[in-house]
């Protein structure tokens, strides 16, 4: 069994340490893959080492994901732009610099798995998948249109690269646990990443899965929590308190790293270094802002599923393009 390099410490190791862990991980993978087929060689070549992260490209992609997803929501007159924006940097980091996946072979058995548990933020997912080569820009224009493959919540049978049909909350983590178990049983080196919303953790199924992942020592599983502190009706802490969230996950047997969920460089380094500890599942508690990137959307409950007006769309795009007049 190929395990992740051990990394001690409860807090997220920043700076040089992260680079070292990322390089160790890459070295282990490279060694492993060199004995494998040409397919694996392709992965190795597409893997990005931490020193080669093209931050400019990723930041641009994240802005594009936000712009594109808001255009999609505007066009469809439906969607969840606040959560799209809080997740946009996480999604960009994963698809741009972390996941070993290939849009030309979306069901490659040896691919990394990414499961979007917060399936309502499908616009951000689809825009990201388009950026990664799974969908075309024209596909995005069909978002929620009659007979479109781009349903309001993702359907794996219609969209290449989607691993699970999500939408009802609390489904993604159990499925991800199953993926990680399958890799363990097969002694396969691929990793499973799953993104959940914070309010979503009020669903009990997550905690069933949390116990299961620790019991089975799933050190090939990375849970990312989009901690934007808002749910549909109110702030999480005014609804059903989440805190102390990191301590809760630690008490369930997970290695938890807290970080800024909008710091692209840190996200990439963190995800590349994950899983963090041999024998434990990893949790990235990403502090995010709902509506991040647009001043009038940030941290406002109504943008959970508000549709922008034409004027708001233009102002949002201008802000996201860094063209604040």
């Amino acid at each position, binding site marked *: 069994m190929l395990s992740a390099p051990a990394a001690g410490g409860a807090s997220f190791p920043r700076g040089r340490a992260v680079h070292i862990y990322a390089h160790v991980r890459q070295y282990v993978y490279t060694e492993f893959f060199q004995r494998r087929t040409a397919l694996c060689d392709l992965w190795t070549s597409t893997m990005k080492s931490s020193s080669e992260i093209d931050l400019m490209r990723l930041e641009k992609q994240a802005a594009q994901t936000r712009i594109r997803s808001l255009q999609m929501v505007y066009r469809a007159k439906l969607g969840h732009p606040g959560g799209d924006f809080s997740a946009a940097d996480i999604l960009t980091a994963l698809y741009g610099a972390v996941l070993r996946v290939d849009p030309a072979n979306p069901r490659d*058995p040896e691919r990394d798995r990414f499961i979007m548990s917060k399936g309502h933020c499908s616009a951000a997912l689809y825009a990201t998948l388009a950026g990664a080569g799974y969908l075309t820009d024209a596909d995005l224009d069909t978002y929620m249109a009659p007979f479109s493959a781009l349903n309001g919540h993702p359907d794996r049978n219609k969209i290449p690269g989607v691993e699970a*049909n999500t939408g009802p909350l609390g489904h993604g*983590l*159990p*499925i*991800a646990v*199953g993926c990680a178990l*399958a890799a363990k049983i*097969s002694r396969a080196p691929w990793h499973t990443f799953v993104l959940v919303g914070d309010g979503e953790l009020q669903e009990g199924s997550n905690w069933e899965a949390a116990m299961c992942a620790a019991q*089975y020592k799933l050190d090939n599983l990375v849970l990312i929590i989009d901690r934007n502190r808002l749910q549909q009706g109110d702030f999480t802490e005014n609804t059903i308190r989440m805190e102390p969230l990191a301590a809760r996950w630690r008490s369930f047997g997970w290695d938890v790293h807290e970080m800024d969920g909008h710091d692209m460089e840190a996200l990439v380094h963190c995800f590349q270094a994950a899983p963090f500890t041999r024998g434990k599942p990893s949790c990235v508690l990403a502090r995010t802002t709902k509506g991040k990137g647009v001043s009038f959307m940030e941290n406002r409950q109504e943008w959970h599923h508000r549709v922008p007006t034409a004027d708001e769309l233009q102002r949002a795009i201008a802000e996201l393009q860094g063209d604040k007049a």
Partner: protein
Amino acid sequence: MSRLVDCRDAYSGMLEEMALQDERIVAVVNDSLGSSKLKGFQSKFPDRFVNVGIAEQNMVGVSAGLANGGKIPYVCCAACFLTARAMEQIKVDLGYANYNVKLVGISSGMAYGELGPTHHSIEDVGWMRIIPNMTVLVPADSFETRAAIQYSATHDGPMFLRISRIPVPDLFDADTKFEPGKALRLREGRDVTLMANGVMVSRALQAAGELQEMGISAQVLNMSSVKPIDREAIEDAARNTGGIVTAEEHSIYGGLGSAVAEVVTQTHPVKMRILGVPGVFAPTGSAEFLLEHFGLTAEGIRSAAVQLLGSR
């Protein structure tokens, strides 16, 4: 009748045999090693045995993930908890996503008898049948159970297999092959058709024998494949016999009787009698007592047939 058998032994034995041949097969349980008869599987294939503890939602989600990772998971769990507790996961993670997961609902129907309505699973066929992509099988004896389990691994898609613990006589033999969407004619007859599955099949056969003595010729069809269902056999029965009696260890709502009626009313309407649990929570009593209480006996089937023919 011959020796009575527990179909759980047939399913777990077959699963172990198949796991030897196919390393993709994994078993997933919710602590219920004993009642699922999987201790043998666990000792033979410890790496392919996943016990998620008492957590059915997670159990079904995990099975979808295992299927995503190339495994063929057999989720083995008391039918009442498996279906009711994890209904949304079954609908979305397995049905909608169309993952290749086999749900083995153990001790279905009223097998848990005295434990009461919390443990009775008389809604499961209806709930499972309504989910797109889901296949629903209710085998009648140990041989058909083995054949259905064997078939299940060859079918790519979610499936619910209903396995009782109520002892039944063996009706078939080791050469039995399972054919989905096929009703198996166990007895020819022209006056009335008796359709049954699971523990009710031997009772329907017995009823047909008793009807013969009364001068009534009853055809008996084994309806183990509830979904897909044999529309042809049902239409043929409606056209060529005087009426249809269905018998199932399930609510009269949503199960075999409903599935048959859906075909009958749209092809060749004839009178039916739907035998099952009539929309109530059962009183306290053993499984056998409850089957008798609800008329799910040879006598109950026989008198329903007589009444049906008399009402024409």
